[in-house]
């Protein structure tokens, strides 16, 4: 299967760091799959996600993304190019959500479309549909402070998908949530996979990893285990229902 994202020899040295945060990592991510990246604190999993997503530029190695317009060498793009890639092709759901406190739930989602030049009215219509789809109907005008942690993550999930991004990166998306809400949020992320998107999740949580189709384990910046499940994501079908 053709990779949606391919990393080769990915290496990252932080200034002043004795050892590399990433050490020649190779990784292929197929479209429509869910991949969990696990490892102890400091193992390099968040650095790997940031390099794959173009947030960080690796010290060495390549990251190739199969965009709609053809393959893009992420690591060689300049700051503006990587920002454009993140804006137009990728979606993000992080532990803190990275939502804007000043904006309403609806505006937080609509901003992603407005940045693509979509008129505000249309952007808000699309954003509203996603919020309803994710169970936030009636909460569109609420500010972030008026939403629970799980609801805020739903807003982030809506924002990650409203642009049509094919690849979603999630960094500890359930880290700040109780177990019941974690299951709900993961269900929504996996439902996106069923709908054809690709999910890369960094997590400490073995339960989260177990529900993904593949688990990559890092230690000291190296991949020490890469396991695909025969019957991946048992509850994906449940999530799709």
């Amino acid at each position, binding site marked *: 299967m053709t990779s949606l994202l391919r990393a080769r020899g990915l290496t990252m040295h932080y200034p002043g760091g004795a050892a590399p945060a990433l050490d020649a990592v190779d990784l292929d991510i197929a479209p429509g799959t869910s991949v969990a990246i696990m490892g102890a604190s400091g193992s390099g999993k968040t650095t790997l996600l940031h390099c794959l997503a173009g*947030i960080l530029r690796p010290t060495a190695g390549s990251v190739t993304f199969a965009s709609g317009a053809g393959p893009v060498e992420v690591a060689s793009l300049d*700051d*503006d190019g*990587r*920002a*454009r*890639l*993140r*804006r*137009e092709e*990728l979606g*993000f759901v*992080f532990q*803190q959500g*990275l*939502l*804007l*406190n*000043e*904006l309403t739930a609806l*505006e937080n989602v609509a*901003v*992603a479309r*407005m*940045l693509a030049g979509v*008129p*505000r009215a249309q952007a808000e219509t699309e954003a509203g549909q996603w919020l309803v789809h994710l169970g936030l109907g009636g909460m569109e005008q609420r500010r972030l402070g008026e939403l629970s942690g799980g609801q805020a993550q739903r807003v982030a999930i809506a924002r990650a998908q409203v642009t049509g991004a094919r690849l979603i990166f999630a960094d500890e998306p359930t880290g700040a949530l109780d177990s019941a809400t974690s299951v709900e949020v993961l269900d929504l992320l996996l439902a996106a996979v069923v709908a054809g998107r690709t999910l890369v999740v960094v997590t400490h949580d073995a339960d989260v990893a177990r529900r993904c189709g593949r688990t990559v384990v890092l230690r000291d910046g190296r991949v020490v285990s890469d396991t695909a499940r025969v019957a991946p994501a048992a509850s994906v079908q449940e999530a799709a229902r």
Partner: protein
Amino acid sequence: MNAAVPGARPAGSLATAWRLAPLFARRRDGDRLATGLPVVSFAVVTALLTLVLGGAQAFFRWDDDLASTYESLAVIACVLLLVPLSTVGASAARLAARRRDERLASLRLLGATTGTVTALTVLEAAVTALLGSLLGLVLYAATAPLVGLLHFRGAAIGSQMWVPWWWLPLVVAGVTLLAAASAVAGLRAVVVTPLGVRTRQRAGTAHWVRVVVAVVVLVVGLGLTQALGLLGQLGGIVAVIAALAAAFGGMLLALDALGPWFVRVRARRQAKRAQTVPRLLAARMILEDPKTAWRQVSGVAMTSFVGVFGAVGLAMAAVSDDASMPADERWLMHDISTGVLVTVAGSFLMVACSVGINQAAATLDRAAVHVSLDRLGVPRTVMAEAARRAVMSALWMVAGGSALCAAVLLFPLVGFAIFVQPVAIVTALAVFAAGFLAVRGAAALCTRLVPGILARPERVL
């Protein structure tokens, strides 16, 4: 349980802060602008204050019939400059607190008392002000001869600009103490907890009651200005100046009461109508805290207000330049115009410093937002535009509103000036243009902090 060190006594907050201060004084990467701005600001403030005091004491050397008038005007100018001076001090303190946030929070986590954290922050603000004010004295020495070229009562001020030497340590001590006091006040706006430093949440106070209060003050101010003729007959020019000062002060209070309310109403409209992300973000940033948005640029309110007074004063001076008038009265009219313009120029510098510091503090306050937007792929130009719009949008409101209030207050005189002395309008427009450029420049300067924030996102997330 830890055993107590034999013979050890718990140290006081001040002693602890004194021991910790050298550790905090070390420069950090990316902090140059944040560190330098308060020092430069205090230097400019000190230089301006000393120049004003120099000019004022020159006025106090006269002892003829008009001496008291000049003395009153000098006092008004000093008061006008003291207000932005205290704002700059509070801004510098807030910036210092934000700059130290992680380490202050870490200290709290280690068990440092609120007193130690407060003492440390106040100490830093005082040292910053001390350095800045010493630099300011150098600036004063460099600029006093230039300011001495200004003519009052038909002659250059010259060497009278030099204050007695023993005033200098008093000025330095005064600025340092004011900065320390402002730091205490500034710290009340933030909460330093073991988990971080956050801005204290305050309930929105941009209430409609402010409008009522402001209208009452406006009416009283208008009444005073309309009764100037009567006051002149009863108490002479001193009564007229006192009434003008009261009306002036009242208008400033009215502006301060009205400002946040108007800023909120306008931002709400802008948020509804915004079609681009920078416009939407800018409006929402203002709505997040209209009072702060107002205060950030409120220094311009005074400047715009004074600018209109200056323009009208210039027009009146030109019209009154009649050979039949006694020389003293002709000089007085000219000197009022000169004094107002000098004060306006000083206010501009204060405002520029204040906006620069406030923007630097706001940029650091909003560091997490900058990181969030960057990760989403929002171009940095969008962030810069949103921040600039948030300031400039409030500024339009502030400058326009203040100028309008001043024009209403001086309505007959403004109308007269427009028809008789177009130079007044040109002066007013120049005042506005300079104010806008100063604020825009200061706001633009602070966008240079953003790359530093984005380079170390882990500091803010």
